[in-house]
């Protein structure tokens, strides 16, 4: 007690800070940890009260979701849809970003317009997109969902890549042109290799946001193209509430995102603020 009282205010502040940070970190990971733990519990342990903290891990829940519950299809759907739409959005968006950054196509207005399309809540496009895809017979098809996801990813790619391109001195391309490259060659051979890290990070971000998307998928997919987050959320309605298998699907959906997030960590601030804060 006396030792505590003798501490300087600075020390006490520091101690409080450490506790606060520790509490924040525990609060931060606990829900994810608990999901991970539940996925490894037997049914008896899942429904035990008080909750069990130490238990015999089992892979039954994972076995169940991939065999009886048919979680394999939605998982493959998600992988395919996210991979194709990310690739398409990155190619189209990078091209557009280069045009806007180097040749000032559309002047100041076009980039701002692109940014503004990202500001509207996605819900406002849901009904028109649903009716449009329905009239084209593209509901519950891969091309339908991929087209929509490419659109959602495009403004992000354009803004981020435009920022990366603007950082590369134009003199580099001018030198390439003088050496006999045409514009296309200069772009592919000189500029793109320099923006490779930016391109990689942009792709990771688009992949994450496509993989995580729920609202549009819930409206325009059906049994054939249902994505993994949707299947995970529907687990409760189809099987009653089976927390074990449900948490196992959650872990499977989440794991690739956590890995991707760690890969993109150095650029996280820049990516999340579309380059507004460099970090």
């Amino acid at each position, binding site marked *: 007690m006396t030792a505590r009282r003798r501490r300087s205010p600075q020390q006490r502040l520091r101690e409080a800070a450490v506790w606060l*940070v520790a509490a*924040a*970190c525990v*609060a*931060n*990971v606990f*829900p*994810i940890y*608990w999901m991970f733990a539940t996925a490894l519990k037997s049914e008896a342990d899942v*429904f*035990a*009260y008080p*909750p069990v903290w130490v238990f015999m891990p089992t892979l039954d829940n994972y076995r169940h979701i991939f065999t009886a519950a048919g979680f394999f299809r939605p998982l493959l759907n998600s992988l395919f849809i996210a991979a194709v739409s990310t690739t398409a959005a990155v190619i189209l*968006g990078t*091209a557009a970003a280069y*045009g*806007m950054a180097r*040749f000032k*196509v559309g002047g100041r207005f*076009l980039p701002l317009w*692109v940014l503004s*399309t990202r*500001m*509207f*809540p996605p*819900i*406002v*496009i849901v*009904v*028109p*997109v649903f*009716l*449009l895809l329905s*009239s084209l017979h593209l509901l519950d098809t891969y091309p339908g969902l991929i087209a929509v996801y490419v659109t959602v990813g*495009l403004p992000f790619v354009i803004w981020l890549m435009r920022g990366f391109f603007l950082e590369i001195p*134009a003199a580099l391309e*001018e030198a390439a*042109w003088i050496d*006999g490259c*045409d*514009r296309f060659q200069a772009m592919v051979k000189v500029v793109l290799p320099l923006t490779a890290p930016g391109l990689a990070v942009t792709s990771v971000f688009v992949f994450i946001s496509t993989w995580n998307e*729920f*609202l549009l998928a*819930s*409206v325009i997919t059906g049994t054939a193209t249902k994505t993994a987050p*949707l299947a*995970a*959320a529907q687990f409760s309605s189809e099987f009653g509430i089976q927390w074990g298998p449900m*948490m196992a699907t*959650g872990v499977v*959906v989440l794991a690739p995102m956590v890995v*991707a*997030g*760690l890969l993109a960590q150095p650029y*996280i*601030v820049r990516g*999340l*603020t579309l380059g*507004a*804060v460099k970090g």
Partner: protein
Amino acid sequence: MPETPTLELTSPRTAPARRRRRLSLDSALPWLLVVPAVLILLVFTIYPIIYNLDLSLRNVTLYNYRAAQQTFVGLGKYLQVLSDQEFWSAVGATFTYTIASVGIGLVIAFALALLFERYEGIRARISPFLLVPLMATPAVIALAWNQLLIADIGVVNYLLRLIGLNPPPWLGTFPWPLISVITIDIWQHVPFMFFVLLAGLTVLPEEPFEAAAIDGASAWQTFRHLTLPLLSPVILVTVIFRGMTAFTSFDVIYILTGGAPGSGTETLNLFLYRKAFKAWNFSEAGAIAVLMVILTGAIAITLISLLNREESL
């Protein structure tokens, strides 16, 4: 489309023999690069907004949307929406949710960022953990929290009972469901605000702070008169981006409460969704969408002019 793009740079020099043949493709390249992306954006963003406008002036439901003619109702749908009590409670829920989420999140994230900035050692070790909720699939977040919040055997209630508190109906009656979804939203997005604010803090110039220390300014004075004003552009960016994600939140609320009546969680997003895909009234949904576009536009313009004023200072 004009044939001659505005060029900032000199044209590339090509071999004279090939010049005539290649020049056209080469000079069209800037447009070829930009046009596909812009076309796609037009089809899936501008067209839907116009489509909403068209929908909102007619009477389109699931049962007649394939038919050629639906009755033109003028501004009838808007009057119907604007005189609907449920619309206004959705507006209220949206603003409560957004303001509480952004406001409380900002305070927590700011406190953590200041601490991390001060004690550099903990930063590198802890940052990876903070990333996890940020990247996590919102639908999965909802499931994870759902399990934590189960009334009888959930961990949260277990811990509350352990310290002698009576657990509230987290997903039951107002205002608890609203408090729950706001808490989850804050939980998921504090790391975002934290990372951005920390990035802003680490690049602040050191000289003013040294001068303040020499002049004997207190910690609070330094914070109030140096940190806050210097950081205000970054704070504004944080608030705008976070405000956008909070305003558009759908997944977690939809999965946890479904915006159930009496839960106080039916935000505009869920209200529109219910009108479109449960009541199947596309025209009413269209009118709500147009109103939301106007609302978001007005908020965006206000924020952007704030940002501009900030920059001119």
